[in-house]
């Protein structure tokens, strides 16, 4: 028999016993569907995390906050201590890992700077401007992100902020565009916006700034960010008329350390900061928790998919053994007509590989269709706060891998029955009543 005819006969055989084929295909379908979905979640999340990490781009920075005894659910609140728990008037944005944090004073900043391994310290200044306005399009509330220094923005248009420039530069998130009256991200670049600031005694001032970049939103909040020149001028304006006795406090500070530090060196730096009563967190630390949780969930789902596939594998063995039994006469007849054992083996193997292909291809296809719809709905509703996150991303390579692996599993499961078929004695088959 020509190989092409073996393939054709194998495919025709699968369609001859429709119920049996359908049931086996369903078992494989479930496994392949689940695997496709979990791998898509894995791809989606890790690609999102990767853009986030890439957008941060500065591996040699760390956020430092003052360590406060963590309030654990078992032991109740910790005891008030006037030296650490000063009220947080600056409205600190807290890091992901911390339950609570104290504020940093100018003294803390110097102490951090003195820690060995710290190259520079930039206190995160939380500014509270009143509004932002573009042309005559009305005034809108402006939130300025405190840790702009930490991040390198994931740009929709324009360029990164230039901290060494003396011009006032501002970067806006994409969500600001429509309200402010920009027609597109591109159009906004180079435009001048007015920022209203109220000083310590209640007088409002206007500071102008140029839009240099439009940024996609990130895990670190949806605010706009300012370059050093703009930050300084806003801070000065806010401090106008403030008595010298009022100290400036900071929610956190960003430190830089040597570029290319090894993980051990980073750990050592963190330890040094801990000893002095501060908590240091790199961007990777902050994203790490998030990724660990997602990876855990994906891992559990993958395990279920593999269990489903193993069950499907036994289903295949059973199905094919039944099929060999049922077709004893047919096999005997083909052998009597001069079909070799190798061809019989190929026939049954191809049949099971084809069933594996059907199950996995249909499973992957349905997963892609349903997953894409679900992903779109999720990005619009549940995950609307995380633009850029497409929870399910279908990578062609991993889908091809899944299909091939499932076909491989099917082939392995079919080996035993196919061997049994190929060794059958034509006489026993023909005597079989």
């Amino acid at each position, binding site marked *: *028999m020509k190989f092409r005819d073996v393939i054709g006969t194998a495919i025709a055989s699968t369609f001859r016993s429709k119920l049996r084929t359908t049931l086996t295909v369903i078992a494989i379908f479930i496994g392949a569907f689940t695997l496709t979905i979990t791998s898509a979640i894995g791809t989606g999340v890790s690609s999102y995390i990767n853009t986030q990490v890439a957008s941060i781009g500065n591996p040699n920075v760390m956020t430092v906050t003052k360590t406060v005894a963590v309030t654990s659910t078992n032991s109740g609140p910790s005891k008030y201590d006037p030296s650490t728990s000063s009220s947080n008037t600056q409205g600190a944005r807290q890091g992901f890992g911390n339950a609570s944090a104290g504020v940093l004073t100018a003294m803390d900043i110097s102490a951090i700077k003195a820690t060995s391994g710290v190259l520079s310290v930039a206190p995160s200044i939380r500014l509270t401007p009143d509004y932002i306005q573009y042309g005559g399009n009305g005034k809108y509330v402006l939130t300025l992100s405190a840790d702009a220094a930490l991040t390198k923005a994931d740009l929709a248009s324009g360029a990164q902020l230039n901290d060494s420039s003396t011009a006032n530069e501002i970067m806006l998130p994409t969500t600001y565009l429509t309200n402010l009256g920009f027609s597109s991200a591109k159009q906004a670049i180079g435009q001048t916006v007015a920022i209203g600031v109220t000083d310590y005694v209640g007088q409002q001032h206007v500071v102008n700034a140029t839009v240099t970049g439009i940024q996609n939103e990130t895990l670190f909040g949806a605010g706009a960010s300012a370059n050093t020149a703009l930050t300084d001028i806003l801070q000065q304006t806010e401090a106008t008329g403030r008595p010298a006795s009022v100290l400036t406090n900071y929610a956190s500070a960003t430190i830089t350390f040597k570029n290319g530090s090894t993980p051990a060196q980073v750990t050592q730096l963190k330890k040094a900061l801990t000893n002095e009563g501060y908590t240091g967190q790199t961007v990777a630390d902050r994203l790490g928790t998030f990724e660990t949780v997602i990876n855990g969930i994906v891992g559990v789902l993958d395990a279920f998919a593999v269990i489903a596939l193993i069950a499907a594998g036994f289903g295949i063995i059973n199905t094919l053994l039944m099929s060999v039994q049922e077709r004893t006469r047919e096999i005997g007849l083909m052998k009597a007509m001069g079909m070799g054992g190798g061809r019989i083996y190929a026939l049954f193997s191809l049949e099971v590989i084809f069933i594996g292909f059907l199950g996995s291809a249909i499973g992957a296809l349905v997963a892609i269709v349903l997953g894409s719809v679900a992903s779109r709905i999720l990005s619009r509703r549940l995950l609307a706060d995380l633009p850029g996150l497409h929870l399910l991303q279908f990578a062609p390579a991993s889908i091809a891998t899944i299909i091939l692996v499932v076909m491989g599993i099917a082939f392995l499961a079919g080996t035993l029955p196919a061997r049994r078929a190929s060794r059958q004695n*034509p*006489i026993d088959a023909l005597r079989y009543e």
Partner: protein
Amino acid sequence: MTESVLEAHDLAKSYGRGANRFDALKGVSLSINRGESLAIVGKSGSGKSTLMHLLALLDRPSSGRILLNGSDAASLAGATLNKARNQTFGFVFQQFFLMPNTSVLDNVILPLKIAGIGARTRKRQAMDALDALGLADKAKNNATDLSGGQKQRVVIARALVNNPSVIFADEPTGNLDSATGEVVEDILLDLNKERGITLVLVTHDPDLAERCDRSIHVRDGLIVTQEQYA
């Protein structure tokens, strides 16, 4: 002088081992001439099918030799044996052995497909064979939906399709009523007369045996008598 297609020398076949050993054939020698029709007659369980399977190279004898066209069949193995089965022999069985849920045409095509003949040629040859048996209009039907007589005609078409030199028929009319049985007998004997295909016919019907050129009677694994009718 007539040349023999198949020769058997002192064939023995036993099934099982030890206490369960059963000698189905106990030393059978015979020679089948090219173009003749031979009936193998005997009671049920006498060893007719066993003998036929050995002659058709579907099974190996426990002892003895078979010569196919003068050469020892024991030396045939693998691809050569498969080729001999495919191109030299055609089979007709009592139980039909048609592939279920498959068209009449595809059933007849099967031996040609196994032989590796191209799609167009094999379809034409199968249609010719069906035509010869008056079944051309049933080609697209499901083989399992036919009547017994029609099924056996499909089986004969399948046995015929690769132009075999020998057709083995094991109780071909056993599952048919006498009228349809007679039609099938006529077809097989006509193939022998008109196309010169050697016919080996296993039957327990003495009347059918008498229509053949020659008959051998098997009892308890031995040939007891031989009769020449033509």
